[in-house]
């Protein structure tokens, strides 16, 4: 239990550090904080502009008051203002995050399931021809960049075989309530999700396979085999319980990693999600927007870590019942 409480504390501490760094960095770095907080270069602004932004950003107030304002903007959800896009950061993120989650959540679940079942299976039968083939295949796939996977799939499944659409998340004219909307949405999401799944699955597979292979020679596994239990029962009733924790932890971490990974996929499939927003922010040096995205990504990551730790506590009897009962 102590380990999980420590993890929880670490996650919250990291979150707090990100918040403080987000506030402090523009004010501590060399140069005028106005430049960092607006995204415009110092030498490109006139004195009048600098004064205007300094007042608008409350930089003429004391640091504690500025920090209080900053915390308030986090609590009320506005997350600052993008001077380059002329909109509150929260509204920009709110308008985009839904698209990203539609790709990343299914991809996280699917890649985790593939990694879990395939990895467990190959780890149990380690060094078999099937295991060797799977390892080689997924190690190679792990090295292929996601944009290449996406382009190959588009050429093969969109242009050569007219199976999937390749732009947006819906067809023109489709909206919630229109017959066929869900099927159309699923068809549009299929290829981006599949691409992201293919890109993410190898690492999950390798983790599960190696973890399973390590415990495949444990006495309790050998004993189960001797008892004549079926391989599936051994894998899912015996081995899975002992490797569930690293798997769940990896699942939690992969949510935020997938948000970053969807950047390329969104560009290729013309889906205007968080990846597109982050690209725009980096391209235009829109620091407030970058900070907002960093905050949201950190928040998602912290929530994921806390959720996975709670899940680990729930499924681990040693923790749940206390060491003495185990």
């Amino acid at each position, binding site marked *: 239990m102590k380990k999980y409480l420590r993890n929880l504390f670490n996650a919250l501490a990291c979150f707090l550090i990100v918040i403080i760094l987000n506030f402090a960095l523009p004010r501590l770095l060399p140069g005028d904080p106005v430049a960092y907080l607006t995204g415009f270069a110092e030498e490109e602004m006139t004195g009048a502009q600098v004064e205007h932004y300094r007042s608008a950003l409350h930089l003429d107030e004391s640091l504690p008051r500025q920090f209080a304002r900053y915390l308030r903007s986090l609590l009320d959800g506005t997350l600052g203002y993008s001077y380059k896009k002329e909109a509150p950061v929260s509204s920009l993120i709110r308008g985009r995050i839904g698209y990203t989650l*539609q790709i990343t959540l299914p991809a996280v679940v699917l890649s985790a399931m593939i990694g879990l079942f395939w990895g467990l299976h190959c780890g149990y039968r380690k060094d078999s021809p099937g295991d060797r083939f799977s390892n080689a295949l997924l190690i190679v796939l792990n090295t292929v960049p996601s944009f290449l996977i996406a382009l190959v799939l588009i050429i093969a499944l969109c242009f050569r075989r007219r199976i999937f659409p390749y732009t947006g998340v819906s067809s023109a004219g489709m909206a919630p309530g229109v017959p066929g909307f869900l099927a159309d949405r699923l068809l549009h999401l299929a290829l981006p999700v599949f691409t992201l799944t293919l890109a993410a699955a190898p690492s999950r597979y390798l983790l599960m396979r190696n973890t399973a292979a390590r415990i495949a020679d444990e006495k309790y596994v050998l004993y189960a085999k001797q008892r004549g239990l079926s391989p599936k029962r051994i894998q899912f009733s015996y081995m899975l319980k002992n490797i569930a924790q690293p798997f769940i932890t990896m699942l939690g971490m992969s949510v935020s990693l997938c948000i970053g990974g969807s950047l390329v996929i969104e560009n290729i499939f013309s889906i205007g999600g968080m990846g597109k927003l982050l690209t725009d922010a980096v391209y235009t040096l829109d620091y407030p927007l970058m900070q907002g995205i960093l905050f949201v990504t950190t928040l998602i990551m912290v929530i994921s870590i806390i959720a996975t730790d709670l899940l680990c506590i729930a499924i681990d009897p040693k923790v749940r019942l206390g060491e003495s009962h185990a």
Partner: protein
Amino acid sequence: MKKKVLAMLLVLILAFSFAACAKKGQTAPATTPETTDAAKPAETKPADAQPAVPAPEPVDTSIDQIVIGTTAAIETAINGEYAYDMLSSGTTQPPLVWQDVDGNYHPLLAEFETADAKTWTYTIVEGMKWDDGTPVTAEDILFTLEYEDENGSANLKEQTDSEGKVTQAKYAGYELSADKRSIALTLASPNVRELGNMTSFRVLPKHIYEGKSTLTEAEQRFGCGPFVFESFSRDSGTITFVRSETYPQPANVKKLVYQLFDNEDTMYMALSSGDIDMVWAYSTGIAGTYQEVLASGDAVRLISVNATNAPAVLAFNNAAGPFADENLRHAVALALNYDDFRTYVGSPTADIPNAGFVPTSTVGYKQTEKLKTDIAAAEKYMEAAGYTKNEAGKFVSSDGAPFTFTLTFRSDRPNQVSCAELIKTAIDAFGGEVILDGLDSASYNAKTSNKFSENNITMEAALFGYTSAGMGMGNGLGTIYVDGRHAVQGGCQVYDEQFQTILAAMGAAKTPEEYNAAAGDMQDFYAEHTPLIGLYWDSLTYGISARFENITVDNAFGLNNVNNWITITEK
């Protein structure tokens, strides 16, 4: 049992994530999209049919739908968003006039006439109506000029910026006709090329905008063109327009769908495969690398037109920094390798520019010497500027400072990135040093334009891409980018008396002959003083499905223009 529970759990998670994430589109069109196939011609009766048989119904040969792919960064699709304004100029917001590829002007929203190039009378074309049926009037033109003045333009009243700099009003006065169909606008000084400014002048509906501090999205999408805005869906990345039934000359296309792409590769694959019918980007043709691929198939027809834009310009800051010294401008111009720009950056039809800067199809063009590499001559200019070569082969001034300058460019423009690298390579080999300063658009504008820098242009040298409209604005020949007094542009920061005299002569010209004479002087000035140079000239190449014919190309808006939708037919 456990497997079933696991499977159900999985399905539930997926269904939940879809349900949680699905959000409504921006605006849902009422109908589902039509097919991209054109309407099939109906069967017709033989010519000698009996009179007793009722006459056949008129055959509608209109094209059902044209899908246009674009990488334009449109986020709101409302008037005032630059990329959307350029797109809607070909659908819902026709400018007052249009210019064909030969440089001739024609009425679009308004007829035009002038007797002295100073007073221009615009008369709204008969039958022009707003989307709600209200007639378009000359009062709308006047309202638009006044509305722009409220937002910083200097049309009818002079503007003073925060530093006290005054921009004189463009017009000295106006007169509305009694029937409100005509307005006579009197310029502060004559301009024979005034129509060039009107190819991008879109009119706002006075009856919608007047007296309102905020407008709804629908109001900001109001138009008077041959199409009516139907929907913008961020989910599908489409903007849809349907044919207006009130436009005097109906379009031959029932529906236009603009498909927004983030990725050019996917867009051109879609064009090759026939999923989209054409591609469009304002003032930009298809890049040379894609042209060769598209030309290899039969599905796409490529149309090349002589361009009056300047796709890559090296502009010097003539007022401050190293290039205030004319010798250094000449030296750099002579040290560059123009074959490289043409070969590696331009399309297969690209050409080496003249020292007179403007492309051959520009009104008032004059033949000047072609730009060329001449290292010996460049070295002489360096000597004249006080630089000598040291043992390392680098130019240094008398106090030992190396010849170095910062080159500002847009890092999101591939052709500027390529040109910047080629310039750096050439100048490094010549004995100088170039510091590359790639910027996003906002930061770039804040360093290179009078308006966005609030008259604090800090670039030493910068790469630009001037559109056709931009080249023609003001007195033309790209002078708005050269003239340091220009309220918006003025990147070259030229305040030279000779330049201002020639500019005034261009502005005072009352006949095309007078204008051409002054324009010739301006090109001689460019050649003699090198305030800026073109790096390559290029034709603009557009791509459209080979199933279409009778295509009209607009000099400013390419294939996406009102007339094209009226003339275009299917083979």
